[in-house]
């Protein structure tokens, strides 16, 4: 049996007494599109942070391409081909759009020279539809364009796995459709994708498999149609009030 692309074994992350991520184990195979869902505060972003090295894991092991990468530095994750986008986009504000993307190509991707990085950047910007804004300062972009920039930057890093954290937040319906088209194209190029998303329609339509995180724990896992039937998922999403009431009664 070949090793999965990403393997999480009992990964935990606690902040003081808060168990943001608790004993999460999962396997992601190469080429998959996996949705990561869960209510607000379920620990989705924290899990992504632990995988990409932004936070240290307080417990557990992470393997990427068979290599143990627990507590790697963020730049190491980037160079290994683990790339991510942020819920709140983080451009380099006074660099041009092209330079922003070129930075990804130069430092995480395979580009050898700055010129090669600039050329690669332009190709990625054309792909995400920012071809006309290559020389604009990144700080002047609108929110949808910043999201596109973020995506182009991630692609320039030549990732094997792309972790998309709420790429659609703040976009309107047609912009979301556009983003989904891009994500499918990226996946078609062989990039494995983990997508965190609030809009169920988006996740269900895109993902081959779904992981459900609730109170930091992995409560369900399966194909989209099965997940919809799962009792625990329904409780996590629809029965939030019941859950709270039950918790209140217990404590």
């Amino acid at each position, binding site marked *: 049996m070949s090793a999965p692309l990403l393997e999480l074994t009992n990964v935990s992350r606690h902040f003081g007494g808060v168990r943001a991520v608790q004993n999460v184990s999962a396997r992601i195979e190469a080429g998959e599109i996996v949705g990561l869902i869960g209510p607000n505060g379920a620990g989705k972003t924290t899990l992504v942070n632990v995988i*990409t090295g*932004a936070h240290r894991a307080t417990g557990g092991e992470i393997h990427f391409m068979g290599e143990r990468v627990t507590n790697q*530095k*963020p*730049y190491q*994750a*980037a*160079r290994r081909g683990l790339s*991510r986008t942020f819920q709140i986009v*983080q*451009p*380099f*504000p*006074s*660099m*041009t759009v092209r*330079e922003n993307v*070129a*930075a*990804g190509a*130069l*430092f*995480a*991707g395979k580009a050898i020279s*700055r010129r090669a990085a600039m050329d690669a950047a332009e190709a990625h910007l054309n792909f995400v539809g920012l071809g006309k804004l290559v020389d604009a300062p990144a700080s002047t972009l609108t929110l949808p364009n910043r999201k596109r920039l973020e995506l182009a*930057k991630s692609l320039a*890093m030549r990732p094997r796995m792309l972790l998309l954290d709420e790429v659609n937040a703040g976009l309107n319906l047609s912009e979301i459709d556009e983003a989904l088209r891009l994500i499918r194209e990226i996946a078609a190029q062989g990039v494995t994708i983990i997508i965190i998303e609030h809009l169920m329609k988006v996740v269900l339509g895109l993902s081959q498999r779904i992981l459900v995180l609730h109170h930091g724990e992995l409560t369900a896992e399966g194909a989209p149609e099965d997940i919809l039937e799962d009792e625990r998922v329904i409780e996590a999403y629809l029965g939030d009030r019941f859950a709270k009431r039950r918790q209140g009664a217990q404590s």
Partner: protein
Amino acid sequence: MSAFIGGKNLGLTIVLGVVAVLIALPFIGDNYLVRLATFLCLFSALALGWNFIGGYAGYPSFATAAFYGLGAYVGALLQNAGTPMPLAWLGAGLGCAIFAAALGPTLLRLKGHYFAVGSIAIVEIMRLLASIFADFTGGGMGLNVPILRGGPDFAGMVFLYAMLAVAAAAFLTTLAVDRGRLGFGLRCIQQNEDAANMLGVDVNAYKTAAFVLSAIFCGLAGAIYASWVAYIDPTDVFSILLTLKVPVMVLLGGAGGAYGPLVGVVAFMAMEELIWSNFLELHHGVLGVIIVILVFFLPGGLLKLRWPQILGRFRAGGDAKSEAKAAAE
């Protein structure tokens, strides 16, 4: 840098012209001018050195005098131990590089105000250490360095050329860094360190590299200074005034490029000469006023201010005036 397309060649031409004048200076100028030119090169080396960490990486470093003083003491001690002068200088540069490489990873974990205060503390600690280990450094009494033989004119020429060489090396290194991976990575760090890290920039290695480059040029300048004046003491070389003056010079010209620091040094020294000769008693006060004006009216430095005006003036027609006016506002 993209702001002055076409200005790059102009800048390089001016720099080469100035270098030519400086090389010719011992033959055409008097001792006063040679001395002034040596200081010009000294501060250029310090400003360009500071610019790696302060300008490109955006870390508010006030450690300049720590490197400068360390270079001065290492160079002086090596020379006193019988090392030939140029080798002593190189030894000082190497010593400062090792010092910065050892200190950088820890100190550069600090951010913002904490880094600023930490870097000032390094200067104070070095100064106190130099005073305390009197057996070794001469303590507060200072340290004598062998005077270069061959008469004042010859010595003046040697030290001018040596300082010029360091400044030129700092300038060429800056150009290389600016165009290469390191400069790009440092600019990413300056804009958003976390994002740079996520993008694959080994931020600690890059920041330390900038710190080490900064240390090498400041250390070399310090070592040459020690040989030049033939006497150093702790308060002279580990000087808080120096450590604050250098960033002011760079800010005056514009941080984070190859030309800004040079413009700043020239402008600052010109003003300082003017003040020294006219209002000796008001020296500190006038410098203070210059700093206040700089902060309020030249936030991007002289280079950023001048270019739009010059472009406006070059353009024909009535809109040139209005553009220059707009740029001035």
